[in-house]
């Protein structure tokens, strides 16, 4: 049997508009298209693109460990690949950012001798920079998954931008209904951040909009109020840098740089 081919693509956050032409061609041309997207408009659009389109969302179940759901998704994606088909799997945002089954499917397909690749997509982080007018080149950017940030006590520099993802699911490893999975996790996060930032340090809750006519959510609030704020699974916490950074004179000298007036 001839080896199959797997292409993982991203649909971005806004239906159709943030999908690359390359990704579009793979989704249209696939003999089997799987998808896992976050809004009904993209679902409708994908079904129109390719009649074989099949959602992977039913792999989730209340109380089920997400890792098991992802394992099921991987196997469903690989089944037609093993049968020699041209398979495309589309995930919203960037298919390789904060997505477990996509990476695993590519790795497993390659191990089994199939051609597999991932195409880049527009991630929530890309939308964040555009919507909030932030440039990671200004002060640098530290980006962590919120649970990972807390559990492993990630070291970070408060003088640099800090972005924490999935703040609505802190400490939860299963799938749950509802838009916020853990208020307690939020409180723990605030407690930890308060060691480095003042209570009145302004933070932002950001949510990219899936619809072209709806603005993104960009709520500014003091850190101390975060634990009581309306946070959802789509919320990302943006913590601006604390204060101005000074250049190190020795390093300037080493690099042959001189600050000009």
């Amino acid at each position: 049997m001839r080896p199959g081919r797997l292409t993982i693509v991203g649909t971005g956050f806004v239906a159709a508009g943030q999908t690359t032409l390359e990704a579009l061609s793979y989704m249209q041309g696939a003999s089997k298209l799987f998808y896992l997207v976050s809004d009904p408009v993209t679902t409708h659009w994908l079904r129109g693109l390719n009649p074989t389109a099949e959602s992977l969302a039913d792999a989730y179940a209340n109380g089920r460990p997400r890792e098991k759901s992802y394992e099921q998704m991987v196997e469903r994606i690989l089944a037609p690949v093993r049968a020699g088909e041209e398979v495309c799997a589309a995930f919203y945002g960037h298919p390789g950012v904060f997505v477990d089954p996509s990476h695993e499917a590519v790795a497993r397909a390659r191990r089994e001798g199939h051609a597999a690749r991932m195409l880049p997509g527009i991630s929530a982080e890309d939308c964040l920079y555009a919507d909030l007018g932030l440039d990671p080149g200004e002060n640098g950017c530290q980006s962590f998954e919120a649970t990972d940030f807390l559990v492993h006590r990630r070291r970070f520099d408060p003088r640099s931008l800090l972005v924490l993802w999935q703040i609505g699911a802190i400490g939860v490893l299963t799938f749950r209904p509802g838009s916020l999975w853990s208020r307690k996790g939020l409180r723990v996060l605030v407690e930890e951040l308060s060691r480095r930032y003042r209570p009145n340090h302004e933070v932002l809750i950001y949510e990219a909009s899936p619809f072209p006519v709806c603005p993104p959510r960009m709520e500014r609030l003091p850190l101390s109020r975060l634990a009581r704020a309306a946070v959802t699974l789509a919320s990302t916490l943006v913590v601006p840098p604390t204060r101005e950074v000074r250049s190190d004179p020795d390093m300037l000298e080493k690099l042959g740089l001189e600050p000009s007036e």
Partner: protein
Amino acid sequence: MGKQQLADFLTKLSTDAALRSRYERDPAGAMAEAGLDTADRIALASGDANRLEAYLGEKPASIIKAAIIQEPSVAPPIVQQPSIQKPIIQKPIIQQPAVKKPIIQQPAIKSPAIIKEPIIQAPAIKPPAKKKPAKKAPAKKKPAKKAPKKSTTRIIKKTTVKKPKKTAKKKSARKPAKKTATRIIKRSKVAKPAKKRPARKK
């Protein structure tokens, strides 16, 4: 069928700039042209993503990455981390009043690519502290308190670079002062006067 029409319309709005601008100028007119019914129009005109999503009906599937939780055996090093983190916290405390935001002169980089110019802030403390090393050298443990200050780092660097042979004793006395500072010094030493070290040891 109505909701599918709305979904189609939203798809076009994100791929057709002309339609988008027409909608922004005259939402009611654009929605009427698209044949949206009253319920569609109300949902769309709300401009509320959550409301629109609820109206469209299909439950979205959020991908939530499962954090990899390490075994507890990894936990002990975490206890040591706070001590490492301290210098990072303390550094910003040096609040110098001078606000100088000069941009580096980058004449050499003239590639067609977009090169972000890092903003070079004025040095926090000017380097006139040549007398400090003499004061700090005899005190073995004092530098530990002053560790977060940049001046300490600078002084050490200068002595290591300029007086590698003369200050051999002083350096050994300073070693326990600040971990981060010594690391920096070691790196710079390796880069330049690699031969000087063994000379000291012998």
